[in-house]
Structure formats: C-alpha cells, structure tokens
C-alpha cells in the first residue's frame, strides 16, 4: 500500500475543517488523513481499519463483500477512522471535494469521541503497531506450525471471541491478590466480635454464634477451592489460564482476546459514536464549511447516510436525532422534576426555560455514557413517536416479519435488550473441574430467548477442542433446563433441574 500524502488542496481543507472542529470545542488526538484508491480502501476496511492484520480468510470475505458492493455501485465506504493516537483516517481518492470535507468533519467527531468517551479510556492507543505485531507473531507461527493448523485454531478461537467480559476493563472482578491474602489470614481464626471485658465474652459471642461463623468460613473456603470462585464471564481468559495450550496456541488466543477487547467499546458505543460524528459533520458543514454550490451534493449524501429501513435501526440516524433531542431539551429546560410532573400538554408544548445548556449537556453525555445507558436515560416517549420507532417480530402463521407494537415501554425494552451484551447471550464459566473430572461447565444466563441449538452445539465443540476435556453447557430450551455435552467424539444432552 502506498499512501499518498495529502495534496495541497486537501491539506488546506484539513486545516480549515480542523479549525472549525476546534472552534466548536472538539478535543481530539492529532489526526492523520491518508488518501487511498478504492481497492486499497476496501482492503483496509476489510482489515477492520488497519493496514496490517494476521492472515485469515475472513478479511478476504469482508473484502469480497465490500468490493462487490462497490463494483456494482451499491455501496461505498465514506469514512474509515481508527482509534489510535494519532488517529488515522482514510479518504477515498475519487471522492469529490465536498465529500472529503464531509468525511473530515465526521472523522473529527469520531476522534473526539475516541479520546474522551469513558469506555475508550483503557484501549491501546498504539493499536496500529500492536496489530502489526500480532500479524508478525501469527505469521511466525504459520511458518513454524503450518498454515492449516494455525488457521483452524484461529477459526475455533473466533467462534468464541464474543465470550469476553465487556465490563471487566472498568471494574475489578477478582480481588487484588495481596488484599485477598490478608483477608484470608484474618478469616482463619474465628474470634467473633471484639470483647473488651473478659466476663462478657460468653454473652457477646455465644457458642452457637461462633459455630455458625466457623461454618460460614468453611463454606467460603470450599468456594475458594472451586475454580473459578464465582462464575466468570471472561471465558477466553479462563481458557487461557487453565487450558493445556501449546505455546503457539496460547499466544494466538491471547492476541485474539486482546483484539476483541480493543474493538469492544466500538460495539458498545456504536449509536453514540456515529451519532456524535454525524452531529458534528452536520453542524460543521451547515454552519461553516459548505459553499453554496455544494449544498445539493451534501444534502444528497447526508440523507443517504441517514436513510432508514423498516427492519433495522440506523445508528447514524438514531444517534444524531437523540443528541439533537438532548441538546434541545437542555436548551429549553425540558428536564427534571418540574417537567416530568407537568401534565398540561399546552404548557409542555410551550415549555422553554431558555437555559441554553444543550451544547454543554451533549458534551457531558458523550463523555460518560455508552449505548445502553444513553438509550436508557434519554429515549423519551415523545422521541419514540417522533422517530416512528416500533418493535417487529416474526409471525409464524404468515411466515413473515411484521410490526408488532409501537408502545414506548416495549420499544425501549427491546432496544435495550438488543444492545445489552450486543444482543448476545451471556455465557459464564461455572466450573473448571466439573464432577471432579476436569470437565468444563459453562452456563447460559437465560433471559427469555433460547440459544440457536445447532450453533450452540458446534460452538461447544470448539470449546472442547481448546479445553481438551469434555465441555458442558447448561441452558434452557422452551423453559426447561438442558445440559449440552460434547466429550470430544459425541454430542449428548440431558435434562437438568435449574
């Protein structure tokens, strides 16, 4: 790939747009734009935005989709930006000037979001280098071990790549080892409450109480012997720490897990991130950067990005509208107790406290929220009606998808459910020594939806092939407990009581 340095007109555009972005208060890493031809751009996009990834067929699959879409004139990538310091963004060589402006403005929105949103705080800002390192590591293993073996292992690991703990970067799941040790020491002797007068001992700490305490400590100790102590969502980590992996397998699994964590926040903030970038391209373009003769083209492309289909949510559209709604509400003071309790429709409609806090509020929102909390906090019934949101479902009788409901509660719940854990089932490691035979026991936290059975079986097989001992999964099918098992040769299942 041969990135061309920016041509003078583009450099000038960059300076101009960057100026507007700063003027509006956006705060971003230094941003590097590179101009690519369409097939180079397709390649980079297929690689997830990076110029260099480990060899694997799935990039080829992405590439095929992108290039077919482009060649038949169905789709075209407008912007591509990676969370890195400096931020890298790509421009399509053949785009018209107005498009390049639009893309730049959009990109500065993203960069600001990457830098400031809380959920990106832990991400590796040197990921470009890291990805290239991963590529080198995998290539080295391919040379040593053989392409088939390495690729098969990657396939297997990819099948488990969503089994990570999306929240773990922000909380401490495991006690820090030093503190844990101190605690366990102090717990060994059970003395009951502190007694200042010796003759009161029997009253403060009666025998039964002490026995009860000792029993509890015993139970705790028993638990501690269990592996893991409590159910662990980071299945990949558990496999890394406890499976009998070859060094090359360990290395590859570890780097795949690292990549999964790097991409996780982008999935967690898709609506906000795209909404925020769209808000800023729209603001910068319409308030500052657009020239008269560019309006039509801009409007055409903007509306193309904002288009909605009945069967899906467009994150660009939803995010943009929600940010605008928040801005408007905080500008006019349409929040808080007084607003919530006002039943007078006329008063509500005319409500304007002239607070002008909108801009400030959305900057705060982009810092502290992710998609789930964003929707949960700011999606209002008025907004849902205005945006014509609905819940759809599958009608078995008519064999088609149809609109089920427009009721606010249901729409919001469905949306939140879709966003929680990316709408994927939550799977935890419950026991790494199940039945005391070194088998692995996973559990699916059932929330009303059954797993896709054939996929579950095949995935379980992939778990087993990494764990090497039989793997089990507890789930529910049609309300009844079921345990799936793969022992390395055969699948089996049995009913269990939950």
């Amino acid at each position, binding site marked *: 790939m041969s990135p061309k340095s920016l041509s003078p007109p583009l450099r000038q555009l960059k300076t101009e747009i960057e100026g507007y972005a700063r003027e509006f208060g956006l705060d971003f890493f230094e941003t590097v734009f590179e101009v690519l031809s369409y*097939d*180079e751009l397709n*390649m980079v996009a*297929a690689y997830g935005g990076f110029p260099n990834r480990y*060899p*694997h*067929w799935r*990039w*080829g*699959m992405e*590439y*095929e*989709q992108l290039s*077919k879409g482009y060649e*038949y*004139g*169905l789709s075209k990538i407008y912007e591509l930006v990676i969370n890195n310091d400096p931020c890298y963004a790509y421009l399509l060589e053949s785009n018209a000037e107005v498009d390049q402006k639009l893309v730049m403005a959009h990109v500065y929105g993203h960069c600001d979001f990457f830098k400031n949103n809380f959920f990106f705080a832990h991400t590796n800002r040197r990921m470009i280098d890291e990805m290239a390192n991963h590529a080198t590591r995998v290539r080295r293993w391919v040379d040593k071990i053989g392409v088939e073996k390495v690729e*098969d292992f990657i*396939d297997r690991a990819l099948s*488990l790549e*969503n089994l990570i703990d999306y929240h773990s970067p922000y909380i401490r799941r495991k006690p820090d080892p030093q503190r844990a040790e101190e605690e366990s020491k102090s717990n060994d002797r059970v003395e009951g409450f502190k007694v200042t007068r010796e003759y009161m001992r029997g009253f403060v700490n009666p025998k039964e109480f002490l026995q009860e305490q000792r029993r509890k400590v015993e139970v705790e100790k028993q638990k501690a012997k269990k592996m893991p102590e409590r159910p662990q969502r980071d299945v990949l980590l558990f496999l890394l720490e406890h499976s009998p992996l070859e060094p090359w397998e360990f290395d590859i699994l570890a780097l795949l897990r690292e990549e999964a964590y790097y991409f996780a926040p982008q999935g967690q903030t898709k609506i906000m991130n795209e909404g925020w970038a769209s808000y800023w391209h729209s603001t910068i373009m319409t308030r500052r950067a657009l020239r008269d003769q560019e309006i039509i083209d801009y409007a055409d492309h903007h509306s193309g990005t904002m288009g*909605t*289909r*009945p*069967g*899906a*949510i*467009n994150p660009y*559209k939803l995010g943009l509208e929600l940010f605008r709604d928040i801005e408007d509400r905080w500008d006019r003071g349409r929040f808080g107790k007084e607003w919530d309790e006002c039943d007078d429709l006329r008063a509500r409609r005319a409500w304007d406290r002239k607070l002008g806090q909108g801009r400030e509020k959305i900057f705060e929102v982009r810092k502290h929220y992710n998609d789930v909390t964003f929707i949960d906090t700011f999606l209002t019934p008025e907004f849902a009606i205005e945006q*014509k*949101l*609905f*819940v*759809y*479902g*599958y009608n078995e009788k*008519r064999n*088609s*998808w*149809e*609109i*089920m*409901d*427009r009721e606010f509660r249901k729409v919001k719940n*469905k*949306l939140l459910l*879709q966003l929680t854990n990316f709408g*994927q*089932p939550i*799977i935890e490691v419950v026991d790494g020594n199940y039945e005391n035979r070194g088998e692995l026991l996973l559990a699916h936290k059932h929330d009303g*939806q*059954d*797993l*896709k*059975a*054939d*996929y*579950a079986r*095949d*995935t379980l097989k992939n778990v087993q092939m990494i764990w090497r001992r039989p793997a089990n999964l507890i789930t529910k099918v049609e309300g009844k407990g079921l345990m799936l098992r793969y022992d390395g040769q055969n699948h089996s299942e049995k009913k269990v009581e939950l």
Partner: protein
Amino acid sequence: MSLKIHQDHSRFKEIVRGKIKANLKKYVQKGEMIGKRGKDVISIPVPFIDVPHFKYGHKEQGGVGQGDGEIGQQLAPGAVQPGSGKQAGQGEGDHALEVDVSLDELAQILGEELQLPNIERRGHERIVAQKIKYTGINTTGPESLRHFKRTYKQALRRQIAMGAYDPRVPVVVPTREDRRYRSYKLQNLPETNAVIIYMMDVSGSMGDEQKEIVRIESFWLDTWLRHQYKGIECRYIIHDAVAREVDRETFFHTRESGGTMISSAYKLCREIVKADYPSGSWNIYPFHFSDGDNWSADDTRNCVEMLRADILPVVNQFAYGQVESPYGSGQFIKDLRETVGDLENVALSEISDKDAIYQSIKDFLGRGK
C-alpha cells in the same frame, strides 16, 4: 497492483467452493446484494461463512425498526437481515439474473472441480508475433502519424497563454513545437491458435433432450478451451446422411430427419482442417456427438480409416461423445473403441443422461491434450 489481502481473498473463495477446509463448508451461507443493471434487478451473490457462536435464534429475537406502518403490517421481504446486520442476508424478490462469476472464473472453477490439467500446447514451441500498438503521444514523429486534434489543442493552448488568441478571429496556427504525433510500441504476443470443430448428428433419432445434452456439454468444453486459448475459433458441422457446415445458432437448433452417415461429417471436417488450419500452427479439437446409430458397417469402416489416416495425425485430440437416444444407444462407440480406442489422442465418452455430462467433460478434458 497486487494487494496483500488477495491472499486472504483467494483463500476465502477456495473455502466457499469447498476446495479446502471442508469443515467450514457447512457454515457457508448464500447472501445476496440486490443491484440493478439497466432495467433489470439482479441478484449478486455474496457468500459468507458464518462461524458458529453462542447466539440466539434470529426468529425468536425480533428487533426495533423505524418508519411508517400500522401494527400488524408486514415488513417488505428482505427488510430484516439475519446476522450482524452488516452481512448480506437472504432476501427474496423477483430478480431474475444472477451475476456471479466471469466465464474465465467459471473455467477456473471447472478446472479445479474436475481437476483438469492445463492443456499442453503442441507443435510450435512459442510462436511469437509482434503487434504494433499505439499507446501514447510524442513530440516527434513522422508526419503521417501527426495527431491533428492534439496538435491543434496544443497550439490553441499556447496562443491563449501568450495572449495571441482572439476569439473574434479564431485563427490558430500551430508551430513546430505544437505538433504532436502518435507513438507506438511493439508488443510481443504469444500466439496460440486453436479451433474447435463441433460435429453433431441431427438425424431423426436425436431428440431435443439429446441436443440439450450436447448444448450443455459444448458450453463447458467451450468455456474451458477458451480459458486455455485466447481467441479461439469455432466451426460447426451438422450431419445426417450428408454433412454441412452451419453457424452456431443453427447448430443447436436444427432438427432434421433421415439416416446417419457419420463419414460425411468426418469428410467435411477433414476438408475444413486441410483448407483453413494447417496443423503446424493450430491446435485442433474436433468434438463429435451422435447417438451412435450409423447407417452401415461399411460407413463405420470408412470413418475409422479417415480418422486414422487424415484426422488423428493432425488434431490435438479427437473426442466422440455418444448420447443415449430414446431408441437406445448405437454401435459406433464400440467400433471406435475397438479400432482407435487405444490411441492416446482419442477420447470416447458415453453420455447416458444430463447427470453424466460431468463425467464426460472429465473424459474429454482430463488428459490435458
């Protein structure tokens, strides 16, 4: 320019075609994109591989959408895309054409699928022809190659730049420096000439179904040979009791009746080869399809003689496909097998029905002749 992703890309394609990694084959799904070509709505297949994950059954899941519509109203087919949203789904709709592979790619797939060897070209080691190609513009050259328009433009540009151009008196006078000439390059073209001579029996016993088989089979033969030789020529001969040369259209659509004299076709074939395709510089592929019901043993003897003496020595491979007709299969293939079947540039194949085409193509092309 070659991108490094092409490696991943071809690997993906091989998986989709089931060539490598059979364990992934069952996860290959048909996706499609809906596109337009002219007025037609076409479906562009985009296969993808859905690696298994723990996930919900999509139909149970449903989702949130946006737009107009009453409760209970159906969503347009294809509106809901299973998978992660980015992947193309299986929509339905009335779009007829499918665009997927180019013929060249098809030939490649065919080659891989049937494990066809690349054809060994024979005779002339490497006949290289030189071809002149006009590729650019130069400031010097012979007057006969002067590019008038470019010269004029150059002159105009110069005059405007000098301020000597007056739109009211638009006189443009080129000077020596304005002149532009076409420039050419000599290109070496590896030359491979090839001709396919199709012969088909159209006697009364060859029904529509038999012709359909011939047509399908010749399409694939054609595709493969075209992939191997650029600029291939085709000749078509039909025969019953007499043979004549026809165009492609007629070849596939004529139904005649009457007896069968195969020798007539071979005679014509021989003449065509002699007249137009000196064997020193041509790769020649006669294919003959018939139901094998020849008129007489005499005629068959005649055919064999002609093959031996005149045809087999000059062709790369002579192929005979015997199609089974409603009246049963004839004797001809047995006769050939006994007489010339051992020769290495003779390919014989019996095609009992459409399913046998596959094997027959392999019989014909499997030797790399």
